[in-house]
C-alpha cells in the first residue's frame, strides 16, 4: 500500500484566483527517495503542505480530490496526528531549532508526542548515536555550524520515527561536503529503514544521485514522474542539465551508444572508459 497517495488534487489558496495545484495524482511507497523539482511558484511547496496537513488545516482554500498519508485522510486528520507520520525539515534550520541544547531539541518532539520518559531517553540516545551527534549533545544550536544545525533538525524529526521525511531545500545554506554528508545520511535511512523521503532541491548535481525517482512540476501539474535517468534528458527546459549530462549529450552525438545516462562524475567516467576499451578491442 502506498504511504502517500494523491488523486486528482486541486488546490486554490483563499483569496487567489488561480489554482496552485491543477489535478495532481501521485503515489509513493516505502524505500523511495523522490526528488521533487520545478521552477519557483510551480506548486512544490503547496504539494508539501498537503502532505503534512498544513493544507487544509492551516492554509485555507479550496481542496479537491483525495489525499491520504499513511492511510489517513489529510482533510479529517489533525496536523498533530499527521506530524507523527510525516516529518518536515525546512530550508533554514534556524527557524526550527530553538532550545538550549541539541539533546533537548531532540527530546522536544518526543515529549510533545506524550511518550514515556524511558522511551524518550532511549530514542534520544539512539538518535544522537545514529546521527553522530553525541559530542554535541550539550551544545546550543546557535553554537553549531550550518551543517551541524541541519543535521540536528533532521535528527530531531527522525527521532519521532516518521514514515515519511520531507526536506525542503536541505542544502541551500550548506557547503557541498556538508550537503553531501546530510544527503548520504538520509540515503542510508531510505535504504535500511525503508523511509520514504521527498526532497525539494534546485541543485541537481548534488541531489540527483540519491533519487530513486524524479518528479518534475510546472504550473501546478506533474510533467514528469519516473526514472531520473530518463527524466533529466527531457525536462531540462524547466530544470536545466547537470554538467555531466551536458557532456554525455555531446559525446552521444559522436556515436557513443550506451543507453545509460550518467548522473555523477563517477558514472560518466565509467561510461567513457568502457566505450574506449570496447573500441580498442573491436
Amino acid at each position: 500500500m502506498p504511504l502517500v497517495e494523491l488523486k486528482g488534487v486541486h488546490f486554490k489558496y483563499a483569496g487567489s484566483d488561480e489554482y496552485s495545484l491543477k489535478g495532481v495524482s501521485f503515489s509513493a511507497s516505502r524505500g523511495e527517495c523522490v526528488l521533487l523539482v520545478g521552477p519557483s511558484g510551480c506548486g512544490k511547496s503547496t504539494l508539501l503542505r498537503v502532505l503534512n496537513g498544513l493544507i487544509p488545516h492551516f492554509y485555507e482554500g479550496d481542496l479537491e480530490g483525495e489525499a491520504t498519508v499513511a492511510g489517513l485522510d489529510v482533510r479529517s486528520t489533525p496536523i498533530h496526528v499527521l506530524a507523527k507520520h510525516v516529518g518536515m525539515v525546512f530550508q533554514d534550520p534556524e527557524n526550527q531549532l530553538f532550545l538550549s541544547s541539541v539533546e533537548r531539541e531532540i527530546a522536544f518532539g518526543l515529549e510533545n508526542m506524550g511518550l514515556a520518559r524511558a522511551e524518550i531517553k532511549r530514542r534520544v540516545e539512539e538518535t544522537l548515536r545514529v546521527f553522530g551527534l553525541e559530542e554535541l549533545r550539550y551544545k546550543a544550536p546557535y553554537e553549531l555550524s550550518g551543517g551541524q544545525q541541519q543535521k540536528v533538525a533532521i535528527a530531531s524529526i527522525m527521532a519521532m520515527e516518521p514514515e515519511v521525511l520531507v526536506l525542503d531545500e536541505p542544502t541551500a545554506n550548506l557547503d557541498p561536503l556538508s550537503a553531501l554528508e546530510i544527503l548520504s545520511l538520509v540515503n542510508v535511512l531510505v535504504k535500511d529503514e525503508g523511509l520514504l523521503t521527498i526532497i525539494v532541491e534546485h541543485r541537481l548535481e548534488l541531489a540527483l544521485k540519491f533519487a530513486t525517482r524524479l518528479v518534475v512540476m510546472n504550473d501546478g501539474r506533474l510533467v514528469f514522474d519516473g526514472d531520473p535517468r530518463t527524466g533529466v534528458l527531457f525536462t531540462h527546459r524547466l530544470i536545466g542539465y547537470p554538467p555531466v549530462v551536458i557532456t554525455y549529450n555531446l559525446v552521444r552525438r559522436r556515436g557513443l551508444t550506451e543507453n545509460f545516462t550518467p548522473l555523477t562524475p563517477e558514472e560518466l567516467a565509467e561510461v567513457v572508459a568502457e566505450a574506449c576499451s570496447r573500441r580498442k578491442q573491436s
Partner: protein
Amino acid sequence: MLKEEAIIVKDVYFSYNGFEVLKGVSLTVRTGEVLALMGENGAGKTTLIKHFNGLLKPQKGRVLVFGKDTREASVAQLARRVGLVFQNPDHQLFAESVEEEILFTLRNMGYPESRVKERCEYVLRLFDLDKYRQRSPYTLSIGERKRLAIAAVVSHDPDVLVLDEPTAGQDYFNKSKLARIINAMKMKGKGIVIVTHDVEFAVQIADRVALMANGRVIKVGSARDVLTDEKGLRAARLLPPQIAWTASLLIQKGFTMSRIPMLPGELYFELARMLDSRGEGGNL
C-alpha cells in the same frame, strides 16, 4: 577594459567577543571582474565582506575602498560605492511594497526625483519583479525576496556589488538570469564579489576565486587554477566541479588530458579525442 583595484584588504584581523574570525586576511577586489569567495560554513566569508562597506572595521590591518581607509569613512559614504546584499534578505527588506523598497533605496542614495521612477522600472523588469510591485515583500517566497534585495542594491548602481549566497533558493531560470545580469554588470566595469557554495555557478561566472578556511584565505587565483585544484577545494570543504572531477577520475584510470577541463565543452573536446584515437576507424 582597464581593471582598477576597488577594494584592498591588507592583513585584516577581526574577533567577535574574543573569538578570532579573521586571522590576517589579504585580498584585492577589482572592477570589471567577478570574484567568487568560497569556503565552508563558518570560514569567515560573511565577516570579511562586512568589511567591504565599513559595516565592520578591521581591528588590525587595513581595508581601502577606492583608496579610502574604511576607518575614516562612514558606512553611508561607502555604501554608495559598494552595495552589499546579505545572505538572509529579511535583514534588509522593510518597505510596505516591492516598489517602495526600490524607491526608498534610490531616494536614500540621493537620486534626483526625475530619475527615481525610471531606475525603479528598470530593475523591477530586470529582476522579473514588476508583477509583484504592489505586494508586501513578506508575501514573496524566499527566492523572490532575495531577488528583491539584489534588485534594490543594483538600482542605485554601486561600483562594486557584493552578493552573499545569491543562488540559494533560486530555480534554474533565475539562476541563469542572475548569471547573465552579473556578466552584464561586469562588462559595464563593475566589480562583483559573490560568496557562494555553488561550485557550478562559480564555474559559470567567476574570473577569480578565493578559498577561505578557518579565518584565512588559503588560495586565490584564476577560477581555472583554483576550481581544478582538488586538494585546495577539499581543504575548504568544497567538491570539485563535476567536469573537473570526471576528468580526474579518468586520469586515475590511465587516460591523459592536455589540461584539466572545467566546462562540458572542454571535457567533450578531450573525450572526443580519446574516443577517436582508441577506435580503429577513428572517425565516429
